[in-house]
């Protein structure tokens, strides 16, 4: 045991709370379940901050590299002599950073939900699932090896499934939860295969061994190739596919907008701040390995991130459901993070992208949770998701308005809010490595500002809408988290990430690159300005622009028909030509054989059953006849 033994409590407390509420939640009042869950998360948050402070500052000797500490580990499964699956806790800069992110957002969401979910049916269930999710997510980031990560990876998938389908009486929620689960599961298949390939080649699951400078993977670099890429590259690409599924990267993003069917706090916690960045975290976790042995895979990561961010940003401009706008915005921002990882190098200033990605992950968690919770507050008071039914809300919801504005400014990248810093670093890193991607991201920065302020002006300004009942500001339990997160969104940009979270653990000099920063602020301001002109007052300009764009607008409005494409591929091709024959084979040949065996035995039994008729004379007859037959056989024939 060592100084960090208490970190073991960080995942275990939510697990305990989950079991407590899940098993006994129906026995007491729902609000008590909520309080238990919130109290548990409070403890977790305190412990996480303790861990972060002692890891980053008090226990750290200035000038040395941050090392990764294996605080705790048990052997769980012995697969082979070399290959064991362990469960443990690993502390290094990114996992400690994630602890802070998860516990903060989760704690805020717990408090917020006390107000938001008040009086909902299944309140205790909601808190049980939230705790389960917190447990899984904390276990995921603390994993010491890739297999433990995979286990918790699936657990967050399950929690996400349960929470999206929280309103399980609503068909759309049910299908959304299924969609999310199946799509991420499909991606996880890639992850699993990647894990198997990786462990087959390196004989280890352990992160520390895998990413060390004498990683066993290095000896396989010149190994077998397939389609021009080395096996290791393939393995890491497959791992990335798992991450892309969880992080809703193009083309596996289709589940994320639908996942907004879940309660809004869930969207804030899972589908904005924590679970969807698990893919980024996964790549960041294995980043040294990627950059050492598979730079080709990093190129794929970068391009997938870039395309996703552009793609999502365009769609976000056309959506009317405020949560969907935020969902696409999340996808777009995660695209940024992926891109930053993809263009990053390893060590020193080359690792700028790595640092920027994690920084953006941190700031994004703050401002996107803030935006989602703000959207929740809006929905709570208006009882609608559709921004066309909103307008002029700034008078009714002053606190929400202010915090939401902060969130929008942050995501648009206006200095000195945190989004500016992290986005600037990403753009600088992209400019360094790949000008084409830089151009995309530069464009996306403008679009982001536009669609966020389209949302903002539509909701808080614009036409004065007549409401059925006057919207009112949310209770304090809901506005306090907003304010806390707004605080985080404003000030997290001043955290010295270039000293804390770097690819090799050593601090490096980072400075604001004015040649990147000034144009990016300008384009953001331009986006805001356009949005202001179009949506500040009710006008016909947006309509005109939409019609003049014609097919492109319709395509974006329909999310570029990705869902339809998936449906076509799955229903018309996979189901019809693969699944149906397989199902037929299974039902008729496989099951048929089994049924035939069962059926024939049953029939035979019925036939034999008659022998035991209970009639003495029948028995006697068989006995005598048998005796006679035996005499005939053994005496006369033999």
């Amino acid at each position, binding site marked *: 045991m060592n100084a960090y033994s208490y970190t073991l409590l960080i995942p275990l407390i939510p697990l305990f709370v989950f079991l407590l509420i899940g098993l006994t939640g129906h026995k007491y009042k729902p609000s008590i379940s909520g309080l238990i869950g919130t109290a548990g998360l409070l403890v977790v948050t305190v412990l996480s901050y303790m861990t972060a402070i002692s890891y980053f500052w008090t226990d750290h000797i200035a000038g040395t590299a941050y090392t990764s500490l294996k605080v705790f580990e048990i052997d769980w499964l012995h697969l082979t002599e070399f290959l064991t699956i362990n469960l443990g806790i690993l502390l290094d800069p990114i996992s400690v950073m994630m602890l802070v992110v998860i516990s903060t957002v989760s704690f805020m969401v717990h408090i917020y939900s006390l107000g938001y979910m008040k009086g909902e049916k299944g309140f205790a269930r909601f808190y049980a699932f939230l705790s389960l999710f917190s447990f899984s997510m904390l276990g995921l980031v603390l994993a010491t090896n890739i297999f433990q990560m995979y286990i918790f990876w699936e657990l967050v998938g399950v929690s996400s499934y349960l929470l999206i389908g929280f309103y399980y009486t609503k068909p759309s929620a049910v299908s959304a939860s299924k969609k999310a689960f199946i799509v991420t599961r499909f991606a996880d298949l890639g992850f699993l295969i990647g894990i198997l390939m990786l462990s087959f080649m390196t004989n280890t699951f352990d992160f520390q061994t895998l990413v060390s400078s004498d990683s066993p993977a290095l000896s396989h670099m010149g190994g077998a190739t397939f389609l021009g890429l080395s096996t290791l590259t393939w393995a890491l690409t497959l791992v990335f596919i798992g991450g892309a599924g969880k992080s809703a990267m193009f083309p596996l993003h289709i589940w994320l907008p639908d996942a907004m069917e879940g309660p809004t706090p869930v969207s804030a916690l899972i589908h904005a701040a924590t679970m969807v960045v698990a893919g980024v975290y996964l790549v960041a976790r294995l980043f040294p390995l990627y950059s050492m042995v598979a730079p080709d895979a990093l190129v794929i990561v970068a391009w997938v991130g870039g395309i996703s961010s552009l793609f999502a940003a365009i769609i976000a401009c056309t959506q009317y459901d405020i949560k969907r706008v935020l969902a696409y915005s999340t996808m777009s921002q995660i695209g940024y993070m992926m891109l930053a990882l993809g263009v990053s190098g390893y060590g020193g200033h080359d690792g700028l992208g790595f640092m920027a990605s994690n920084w953006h992950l941190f700031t994004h968690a703050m401002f996107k949770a803030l935006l989602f919770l703000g959207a929740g507050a809006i929905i709570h008071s208006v009882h609608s998701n559709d921004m066309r039914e909103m307008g002029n809300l700034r008078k009714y919801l002053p606190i929400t308005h202010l915090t939401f504005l902060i969130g929008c400014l942050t995501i648009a990248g206006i200095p000195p809010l945190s989004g500016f810093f992290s986005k600037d670093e990403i753009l600088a890193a992209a400019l360094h490595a790949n000008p084409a991607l830089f151009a995309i991201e530069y464009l996306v920065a403008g679009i982001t500002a536009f669609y966020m302020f389209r949302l903002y002006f539509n909701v808080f300004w614009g036409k004065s809408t007549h409401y059925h009942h006057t919207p009112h500001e949310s209770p304090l339990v809901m506005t306090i988290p907003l304010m806390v997160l707004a605080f985080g969104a404003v000030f997290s940009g001043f955290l010295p990430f270039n000293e804390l979270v770097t690819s090799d653990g050593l601090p490096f000099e980072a400075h604001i690159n004015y040649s990147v920063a000034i144009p990016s602020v300008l384009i953001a301001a331009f986006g805001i300005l356009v949005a202001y002109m179009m949506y500040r007052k009710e006008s016909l300009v947006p309509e005109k622009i939409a019609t003049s764009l014609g097919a492109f607008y319709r395509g974006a409005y329909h999310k570029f028909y990705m869902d339809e494409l998936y449906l076509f591929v799955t229903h018309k091709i996979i189901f019809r030509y693969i699944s149906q024959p397989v199902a037929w084979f299974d039902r008729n040949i496989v099951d048929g054989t089994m049924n035939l065996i069962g059926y024939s035995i049953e029939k035979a039994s019925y036939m034999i059953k008659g022998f035991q008729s209970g009639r003495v*004379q029948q028995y006697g*007859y068989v006995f*005598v*006849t048998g*005796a*006679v037959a035996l*005499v*005939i056989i053994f*005496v*006369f024939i033999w």
Partner: protein
Amino acid sequence: MDSNILFFLLAGTILLFSVLTVTTRRILRAAVYLLFVLVSTAGLYFMLNYNFLAAVQLTVYAGGIVVLMIFSILLTSHISEKAKLAGMKQSLLSALTVVAGAILTIILLMNHQFTASSEPAVSPDVQNIGRHLVSYGENGYALPFEVISILLLAAMIGSIIVARKESLAANVKPTDENPEK
């Protein structure tokens, strides 16, 4: 020559009444035919000089068992009642098996060469029988004798218990219906 006639007479009686026993539809008559069979068998024993055995056959079989059966018939069915016959199929199949079995057995024993022991004969008179029955040396039957005694005792107790009207549990309870008994 006359003993031959006696044998065929007895054998004919036995065969006739055996068949009648198993085929008659009146159950009381079946008992009486069985009695004839048993008596004729006793006659065979007489013919073979086993007088004691014949006497036992008459007293135990004819006198005991058959009377017991007649009583039980009177207890369980009417005299006028005609027994139901077995189905055609059952009768035919049984007859086939039985005839086949009989023919096979007869063929077998006709083909078998029996060899008689040439040692001096022992007279089956009552004196000899009594001596053998209770001696335990060579040719002594004291053990079977005792075993069969116990068997008879057990059968007696068992049949009393089985045929008793009240259940055992009911009997254990004190009876207050007939306090004078």
